[in-house]
């Protein structure tokens, strides 16, 4: 396989809310086609990092390159459309489930009816297509949000706890669907509390704590032989601040 250009290159990125620094990343590259797992306790800066990668916020300092070019917020819509996010609390528009799943594709002026139906089917939502999206359970909404993200065709998927509300059967389904997306060459950034999920899906995993990158390594190395004592403590389930 020929080496591909990095999807993202972050240089000296810092993000503050008021006087509080919530993220401080001296350097980070995310390779095109890889799945980067991001683990860490609540408040570690995981969701903030995703918002920066989605170009929803401008970092307080530093530079983000995307696809080899500087990405200054606000980015052109053509750039923004190469990335999409499934948020931790999936927001369903007040329309049918099918219209929600098709929404991102429609924004691009495409209908793609066959693809939308196939995705509904794939994520076990076919029977709910006509239902109002606001009436879905948490797990159903989460699968609909993932279907909607995949349907956009964006090359980068940013996923914030995509399996948090799912029952075990649907966790396996979502992980299978994500593996399919990996084989299609999509770049995935997977934020999760669930270290097992990162272990099963991620090429490399990053441990974030207090806004700092504590450790970044191939997933097996990070889980089997963490170098930093804080990573070891986190993986052992001990509380770290």
């Amino acid at each position, binding site marked *: 396989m020929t080496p591909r250009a990095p999807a993202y290159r972050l240089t000296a990125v810092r993000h503050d809310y008021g006087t509080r620094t919530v993220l401080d990343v001296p350097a980070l590259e995310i390779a095109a086609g890889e799945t980067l797992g991001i683990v860490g306790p609540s408040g570690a800066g995981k969701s903030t990092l995703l*918002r920066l990668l989605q170009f929803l916020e401008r970092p307080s300092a530093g530079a983000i390159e995307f696809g080899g070019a500087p990405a200054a917020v606000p980015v052109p*819509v053509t750039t923004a459309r190469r990335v999409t*996010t499934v*948020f931790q609390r999936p*927001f369903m*528009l007040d329309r049918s489930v099918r219209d929600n799943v098709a*929404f991102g594709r429609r*924004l*691009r002026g495409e209908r793609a009816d066959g693809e939308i139906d196939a995705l509904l089917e794939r994520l076990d939502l076919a029977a709910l297509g006509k239902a109002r999206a606001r009436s879905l359970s948490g797990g159903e909404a989460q699968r609909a949000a993932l279907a909607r993200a995949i349907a956009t065709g964006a090359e980068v998927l940013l996923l914030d706890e995509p399996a948090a509300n799912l029952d075990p059967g649907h966790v396996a389904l979502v992980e299978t669907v994500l593996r399919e997306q990996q084989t299609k060459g999509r770049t995935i950034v997977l934020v999760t509390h669930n270290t097992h999920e990162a272990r099963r899906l991620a090429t490399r995993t990053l441990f974030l704590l207090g806004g700092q990158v504590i450790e970044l390594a191939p997933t097996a190395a990070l889980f089997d032989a963490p170098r930093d004592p804080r990573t070891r403590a986190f993986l052992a389930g001990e509380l770290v601040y």
Partner: protein
Amino acid sequence: MTGAALVIATLAGVPIGAALGLARFPGRRLVTLLLYTGMGLPPVVVGLFVYVALSRSGPMGDLGWLFTPAAMITAQTIIAFPLVAALTMSAVDGVDREMRLQVKALGATRAQLAWAVLREARIGVTAAIVAAFGGIISEVGAVMLVGGNIEGQTRVLTTAIVLYARQGDFALAMALGLVLILLALGANAVLLQLQGRSR
């Protein structure tokens, strides 16, 4: 007349209200304050300003609009606009911030985002238009002042009611009042219908 004023106020007020609800810029609070004040502006004062502006020696006297339906539409539009704009703004402002982030993250342009937010806020936006309708259909001071209550030309339900009540023809005044109430009832029925459909 009321319909024309409502259409103009809606075409101007909904986009401006949506823009104010979505954008953050210096001076937004001032604009909000002005709109809220506009909502509570006594219609008769609006009528007075329009009268002065349209009177022969006024800045817009050349239009020759005074005591014509055009003058009444102008006054009603000025009364309705802050209602439509301010209530649309608060409806749009009330849409979940996460909704906007999600729609942006799905690749919406600014215009697509605005449209999607307006669609989410449609109950509030409908309420804004109906409130404006209620405000101008029941209004009497401004239309009396700038329209002149000329029979067959600028006489409307409210000004006719005033006239007939003054003349002691209470039966006719009451009947016209009933028609006015039925119109308001119809407008509210339309609102309820729209709200019901989106549930």
